[in-house]
């Protein structure tokens, strides 16, 4: 600390007995500070304005199609014939919902159980080993997840799960399909699930840890088992946080592009079963980049769907962040 003090002030000026408040040096320091302040503030404001800017730009480019087509027909029509000027997004919206739902069903239970285990049960040694590994999992690029999905998940679905399930549960529409490839909703959901494990685990774990130790001990000293304590006290207290973690994971799943695109089949249809191929919105945008400038209104349609995606993801995100803020505020 003293070293810093020595560097901040030239001791000579003090010795000279001059009032540092009046010196030229002081004015220079203040001026520098002021200008830095304004620069930083400008940058910060620009960042805050970035979200509306992105939304505005997308709206601007999507306007041609919004002006010529009714919103209900865009959102609820199945007819997707860009060359004929028909842009019905329903198959893609449904594709997104199917894949995201399957991903959440597969991801949420193991993620939450892992978060609870690491925060409440695991010895410190295990935590120190597991958490970095989970962080590494979070860092893997989505194309690599895609490659892994093509190499492992798709054959697994196509060769093992599909034959098994259709033999035993084939009577249910949810499991009936004429797509034997393995590329489809289930593969996309499974790859996505693995991708959002780390996110849900990290957020949920943080918020579970934020529950005061005294609460756990209060429950334990009444003779509750650890699981009873977790179930009735810890999770109850961290409820909003757990919801926030799940919502955050969901918003990540909704917007994920490359990995899903590589395993989901990309057929513009409304999926009827978890083995059907699907075509989620992000995949639609990414796949048609090449041709979108040559067909009238096509680029407006795709950027419009990017806008829809952005708004949905934003809604989820803001809700989750606000929940966390409220929770942390009350703790």
């Amino acid at each position, binding site marked *: 600390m003293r070293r*810093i003090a020595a560097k901040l002030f030239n001791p000579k000026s003090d010795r000279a007995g001059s009032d540092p408040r009046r010196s030229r040096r002081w004015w220079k320091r203040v001026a520098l500070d002021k200008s830095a302040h304004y620069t930083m*503030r400008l*940058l910060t404001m620009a960042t805050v304005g970035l979200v509306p800017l992105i939304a505005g730009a997308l709206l601007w480019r999507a306007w041609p199609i919004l002006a010529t087509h009714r919103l209900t027909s865009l959102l609820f029509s199945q007819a997707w014939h860009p060359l004929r000027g028909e842009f019905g997004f329903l198959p893609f919206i449904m594709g997104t919902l199917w894949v995201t739902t399957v991903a959440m069903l597969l991801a949420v239970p193991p993620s939450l159980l892992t978060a609870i285990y690491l925060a409440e049960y695991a010895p410190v040694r295990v935590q120190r080993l597991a958490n970095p590994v989970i962080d590494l999992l979070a860092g893997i690029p989505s*194309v*690599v997840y895609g490659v892994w999905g093509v190499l492992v998940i798709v054959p697994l679905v196509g060769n093992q799960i599909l034959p098994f399930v259709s033999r035993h549960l084939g009577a249910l529409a949810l499991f009936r399909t004429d797509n034997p490839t393995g590329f489809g909703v289930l593969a996309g959901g499974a790859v996505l699930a693995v991708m959002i494990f780390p996110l849900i685990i990290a957020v949920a774990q943080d918020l579970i840890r934020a529950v005061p130790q005294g609460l756990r001990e209060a429950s334990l000293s009444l003779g509750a088992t650890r699981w009873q304590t977790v179930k009735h006290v810890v999770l109850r207290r961290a409820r909003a946080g757990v919801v926030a973690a799940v919502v955050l994971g969901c918003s990540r799943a909704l917007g994920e592009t*490359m990995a899903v695109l590589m395993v989901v089949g990309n057929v513009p249809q409304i999926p009827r079963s978890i083995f059907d191929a699907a075509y989620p919105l992000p995949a639609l945008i990414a796949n048609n980049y090449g041709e979108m400038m040559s067909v009238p209104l096509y680029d407006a349609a795709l950027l419009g769907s990017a806008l829809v995606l952005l708004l949905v993801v934003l809604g989820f995100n803001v809700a989750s962040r606000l929940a966390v803020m409220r929770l942390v505020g009350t703790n």
Partner: protein
Amino acid sequence: MKQHRRRRLEERFFLVLMVFSTVTVLGSLFLILYTIIRRGMPALSVDMLTKVPKGGYYLGKEGGILNAIVGSLYLAGGGTLIALVLSLPIALYLHSHARHSRVVHVTRLALDVLWGVPSIVYGAFGFIILLALGMRASLLGGIIALALLELPIMTRGMDEAIAMIPDALKEASYALGATHLETAVKVILRQSAPALLTAVLLAFGRGIGDAASVLFTAGYTDRLPDSLLSPAASLPLAIFFQLGTPFPAVQQRAYASALVLTVIVLALSIAARYFAKRLTRNVVK
């Protein structure tokens, strides 16, 4: 007594489920690494790393992915540089001038929201910028998209790193009459330097691995990028395109490229962790 046995059973049951889940999650990382190494190793060669694609590369003929490796380094390097120039002042601002003001909350919320924006949206936004400027897909376009993608990651990382510095240290500096700026640069920056580097490395890792944002903005080419305005290849897209060909030999190369990308990203991630650890040793308590 029956109740007693029941809750013991419940405890057991959930513990088994939890351990099973944890093993599944950790196992999935190892399975991914195993798969990528196992399938990527055979096709990996010196040529792959040191040559650009020759004619017929995508049919299985000679060449490598040097164009993509170099392109990715340029793209992510440029994006990281711009993001750094923007995010360092913002992160410092949140902890010096703007401390205790409402701006901090709003900015953090905005950053968190930006953090959640899908990369395909950044790609689309970058594409619109290019259109508005009358430019084509180029190295510069990719850099802009990646800078936007990395900005919230880096700023939040720095924000959290700086938050670890004890308040007392900053206050001691103010108490000595230092201005906000002097405190920011001489105390905050110095104290948190290793952790700031962590944030930079993590953002770089995210940038180099992202495909959707460079898809529209950087284009793809078999040549090495020679100017900011020419298109640039990137590793994620190289993987994507090679995997999309119908030739097994080229798909093999996609696996090898995935291995290269994974190694780069994991190395960055581990280096980041190393610097984050150093922080705790250097901070004056």
